[in-house]
């Protein structure tokens, strides 16, 4: 039986003389997640649905592995470091099937049962996480993506690239809520949703993923729950905060592409600046009554400040609240934003990196206006750079013999200062330290680069961002 418990977990003994093996798994609160230090956790379950789905997983495990019983207790509420978060016990005639069933149950629970984990980080912020993804793709119908994989522009490789792409969606309002179902359905691997607002009745005429009964609830959470239901293969996180100059770089560090669905010019400029600095493509859309605008700020391309050297303030233009908006307009433009994201990740032509597209829904007039670099742009400095390669990563394993081709390369160590980065013992190439948290592509040395970190995760992410001239050291320097 699957049990949710607000109290510390205690599982009574289960006498069963036919079981020669009992495998017990204890999941505990760990101090670190993906390079961030965690202080505490809070679990929240989607009550009935979690119990039903949890029971189903356990019943399937008994059936599938032929074990005698399977039980699970999952904590909810706030847990401190080291506390028991989940306990699974499988009893069977023999140990092998008990071990296998136990591991399978944990994978399934993470992928299918709607339990959310809020991590409180040392830096003072926090985030909700639905702990997907489904590695083995259980219960994921293999035919799920066939209609888009069939497109020559997508294929298996493109689908894999989507699965490896992390999207940051800023704003879960009109644009964001329209983009979200298509982001989830397309198979992007991770979606981070940032929105500080609670659902209001006045949102519902255009934000169609939300229901009237949810008025008053936080939109980031509602949106994340929807993604978890639509596609359990997506790892989704909800951040209930307003994006600003202080938190933007942190959010961008954890993503490969940004969709801007905010409704303030201030936020749009904050995201522009952060995206240019981090070298992330940014898809921005803005609306006015019956008209929409969409553009892409891509690494090397002109940015929003090239277009608006004098940052207009929000007071001088109307938001949807002030000017009004027809419900279908954000629907169309949110989906166009996903279209641009797909084209970018799949390396397709026609991305609006040098254009602004304007469309008027009353007349179906559209116009594309060519944007250029501004030579004195304070953010992107106006230097024309070649378009980056699609988001792919090249990794090299260090087998003590530095391949000949690397001899003229620069080693860029992206470990943080408090990790005491130093040239690895095996390194006789040029070495420099650019911590991942302050990473700025403009500070990189010229020429070919080999990025290294302790375990090879951060270097992989940043190498993808830099593109063709960067490799990542597989497994990191700790494996050297």
């Amino acid at each position: 039986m699957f049990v949710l418990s607000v109290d510390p977990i205690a599982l009574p003994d289960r006498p069963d003389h036919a079981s020669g093996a009992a495998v017990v798994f204890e999941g505990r609160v760990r101090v670190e997640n993906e390079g961030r230090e965690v202080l505490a956790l809070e679990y929240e379950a989607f009550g009935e649905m979690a119990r039903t789905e949890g029971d189903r997983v356990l019943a399937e495990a008994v059936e599938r592995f032929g074990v005698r019983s399977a039980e699970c207790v999952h904590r909810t509420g706030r847990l401190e470091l080291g506390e028991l978060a989940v306990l699974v016990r499988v009893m069977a005639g023999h140990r092998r099937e008990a071990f296998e069933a136990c591991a399978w149950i944990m994978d399934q629970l993470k992928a299918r049962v709607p339990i959310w984990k809020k991590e409180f980080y040392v830096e003072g912020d926090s985030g909700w996480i639905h702990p997907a993804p489904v590695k083995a793709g259980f219960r994921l119908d293999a035919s799920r993506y066939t209609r888009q994989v069939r497109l020559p522009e997508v294929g298996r490789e493109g689908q894999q690239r989507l699965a490896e792409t992390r999207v940051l969606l800023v704003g879960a309002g009109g644009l964001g809520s329209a983009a979200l179902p298509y982001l989830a359905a397309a198979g992007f691997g991770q979606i981070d949703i940032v929105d500080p607002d609670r659902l209001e009745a006045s949102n519902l005429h255009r934000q169609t993923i939300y229901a009237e009964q949810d008025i008053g609830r936080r939109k980031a959470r509602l949106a994340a729950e929807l993604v978890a239901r639509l596609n359990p293969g997506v790892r989704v996180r909800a951040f209930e905060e307003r994006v600003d100059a202080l938190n933007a770089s942190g959010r961008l560090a954890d993503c490969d592409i940004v969709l801007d669905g905010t409704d303030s010019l201030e936020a749009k400029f904050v995201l522009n600046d952060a995206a240019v600095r981090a070298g992330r493509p940014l898809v921005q859309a803005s609306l006015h009554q019956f008209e929409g605008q969409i553009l892409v700020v891509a690494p090397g391309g002109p940015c929003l400040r090239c277009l608006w050297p004098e940052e207009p303030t929000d007071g001088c233009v109307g938001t949807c609240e002030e000017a009004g908006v027809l419900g279908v307009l954000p629907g169309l433009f949110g989906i166009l934003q996903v279209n641009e994201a797909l084209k970018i990740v799949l390396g397709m032509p026609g991305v609006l990196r040098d254009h602004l597209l304007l469309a008027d829904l009353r007349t179906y007039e559209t116009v594309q206006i060519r944007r250029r670099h501004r030579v004195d742009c304070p953010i992107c400095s106006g230097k024309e750079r070649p378009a980056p390669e699609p988001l792919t990563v090249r990794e090299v394993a260090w087998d003590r013999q530095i391949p000949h081709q690397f001899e003229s390369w620069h080693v860029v160590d992206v470990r943080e200062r408090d990790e005491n980065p130093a040239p690895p013992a095996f390194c006789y190439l040029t070495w420099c330290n650019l911590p991942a948290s302050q990473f700025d592509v403009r500070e990189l040395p010229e020429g070919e680069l080999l990025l290294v970190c302790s375990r090879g995760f951060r270097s992989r992410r940043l190498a993808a961002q830099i593109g063709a001239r960067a490799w990542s050291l597989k497994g990191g320097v700790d494996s050297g």
Partner: protein
Amino acid sequence: MNLTIRYFASLREQRGLNEETWSTSASTLGELYEELRQKHGFTLGSELVRPAVDGEFAEMTDPVADGAEVVFVPPVAGG
């Protein structure tokens, strides 16, 4: 000289037209915008509007050429 002027967002709203033909003796896009602003009562100053000529963004200091299609794009914030 004669130009085609297209308006978007709040400018379109204030002008009440998507497009019009306009005769002017203005020598720069900035002068042209000021002329239109006074005539039509646009509230946005020229520093807040971006001009484009024949499908490319331009500067308010750029000259105006006969027969050009000029678009004035105001900033838009809604989402």
